[in-house]
């Protein structure tokens, strides 16, 4: 049988697939197995104890709190930025597009240091904040700020290509029928981008809960107070408390797995809807 131009020989295909799958197993599946293996090494009881321990619970609560503030903020910022960029022409537009990518291109540690520099005791606003008894660095507000910064691009990046592809026709149609700007957004824009938005929110949330670098810089690592889950894992690990460290880490791994499943589902919906519309 004559193969097409892109059909490789059987051997080449086997080699490529082995390399691909081997890489996947070595770098993705194995760590996952190790995390759960180590976490459950001393049985379910030890696993349970590590998670319900007060400091661990505090870390879980704080992680959820930070995400619960950062994600909604970034939904609003992301939609606003995408809306402004795709529906209006204004000076400085390309600059804004570049800045949206900044958190991706800058090291998370630097992102954290920016806030220390700004709000820390030796920072620009430090003295003023101290006078008014407002603590941002080494406290929850700083961690929220750092997380917001790091996770800012997810929603905006997801929406910008989608919204620019869809153009302004639908909004204009809504407006011409007497809708207010808000109604046009709610009834025409948002439904068109809802799957993309959900996808962005999902990734944003995963990163918000898993962020280590930036949060680590501004947190101060106060046990039970300013430790998120990733920070808590690090502390436990450095204390040679491996079972507890991996137990908490397994929760983060679970979050990743759930995110992946939801992401695949959204991609499937997204595609399905994108193609069926016949616009």
């Amino acid at each position, binding site marked *: 049988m004559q193969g097409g131009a892109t059909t490789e020989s059987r051997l080449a295909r086997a080699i490529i697939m082995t390399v691909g799958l081997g890489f996947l197993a070595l770098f993705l599946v194995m760590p996952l197995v190790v995390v759960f293996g180590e976490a459950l090494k001393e049985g379910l009881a030890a696993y349970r104890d590590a998670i319900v321990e007060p400091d661990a619970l505090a870390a879980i609560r704080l992680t959820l709190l930070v995400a619960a503030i950062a994600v909604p903020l970034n939904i609003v910022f992301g939609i606003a930025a995408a809306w402004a960029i795709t529906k209006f022409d204004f000076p400085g537009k390309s600059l804004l597009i570049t800045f949206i990518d900044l958190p991706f291109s800058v090291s998370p540690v630097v992102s954290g240091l920016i806030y220390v520099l700004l709000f820390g005791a030796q920072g620009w606003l430090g003295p003023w904040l101290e006078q008014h008894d407002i603590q941002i660095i080494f406290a929850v507000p700083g961690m929220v700020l750092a997380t917001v910064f790091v996770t800012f691009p997810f929603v905006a990046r997801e929406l910008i290509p989608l919204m620019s592809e869809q153009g302004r*026709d*639908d909004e*204009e*149609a*809504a*407006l*011409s*029928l*007497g*809708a*207010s700007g808000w*109604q046009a957004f709610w*009834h*025409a824009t948002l*439904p*068109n981008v809802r799957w993309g938005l959900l996808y962005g929110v999902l990734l944003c949330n995963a990163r918000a809960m898993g962020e280590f670098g930036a949060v680590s810089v501004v947190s101060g690592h106060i046990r039970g107070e300013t430790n998120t889950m990733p920070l808590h894992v690090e502390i436990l690990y450095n204390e040679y408390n491996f079972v507890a460290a991996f137990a908490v880490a397994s929760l983060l791994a679970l979050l990743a797995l759930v995110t992946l499943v939801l992401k695949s589902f959204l991609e499937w919906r997204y595609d399905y809807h994108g193609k*069926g*519309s*016949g*616009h």
Partner: protein
Amino acid sequence: MSIRLDNIGKRFGGFSALGDIDLEVEPREFLALLGPSGSGKTTLLRIVAGLEFPDSGRVFYDGEDITDLKVADRGVGFVFQHYALFRHMTVADNVAFGLTVRRRRDRPPRAEIRDRVQKLLDLVQLGQLGARYPAQLSGGQRQRVALARALAVDPKLLLLDEPFGALDARVRKDLRRWLRELHDRMGLTSIFVTHDQDEALELADRIVVMDHGVIEQVDTPQKIYDEPASAFVFDFVGESNQLPVTVSGGRARLFDRPLALPEGTATPGEGPARLFFRPHDAEIVADEAGALPITVTLARPNSGTIRVEGRLDALERLIEIDAPMGDAPQVGARIAVRPTRARLYAGTGAE
């Protein structure tokens, strides 16, 4: 509703999209904005609608200056080129949209909205399809949903951007006739944008021919076709033959050959000019003197006549004429052609 445009100008960056447009539209008129792409016709329509704002000039509805009024407050019906139906809503919800977004005190009760939507769907002959989604409809059906949606807010003015552009030829022809009937029956004033001259000639009461952001001619279809005001209009509307000539002493010459022009052909001033005539405004003559000698390259039937194509000897240029059936010359034959109706426009067309 009557519309008056006063000195409308619009620029996009350094590009002048519209320059000093003056136009009046009579109540109940069906007006076509005709021109090639980039002629500014869509921009003009969007300015009338309030989707775009002019840099200079004013827009009047019924004598009232509404230049600064937003599209949402103008109460016009706008049909978009690609329909812009809301994909996530049923056909009925799409049509109801203009009513459901009204403030509570202006909004009709739900039952009344339902009745009106049903009436509109019946009007556009889609009475059974209210529960469908736009993706489940054909192009022609979507177009009619878009129209019903625009009519739901009871507009006096209906604006349509390339309304038949995305439809196949058969559907287009049916929809045209149907739209014209609807316009007359509902007593609307309508303006539509098109690049299709047949559409404009068949449908409109008057045609506005535009090019490069200015109006070339505003007239009835008959006058646009018979008395094009400029070389551009002659060229753009209908089929035409075009020859570079020189006018001197009230006579036209093609190179050194004198041309016998039909009686009553107005001649522009001395100098280079362009001669235009339509294929059906020419005859084959026996005498070459003052006529155009051509060598026939093609002869084929063309709705009731024979379309003859020939190469003009002096020029690498094809001439097309319509000869009566049964009297067609053979391919390769040398014949002489004389325009029976023609127009001359000053200039070479290169400026």
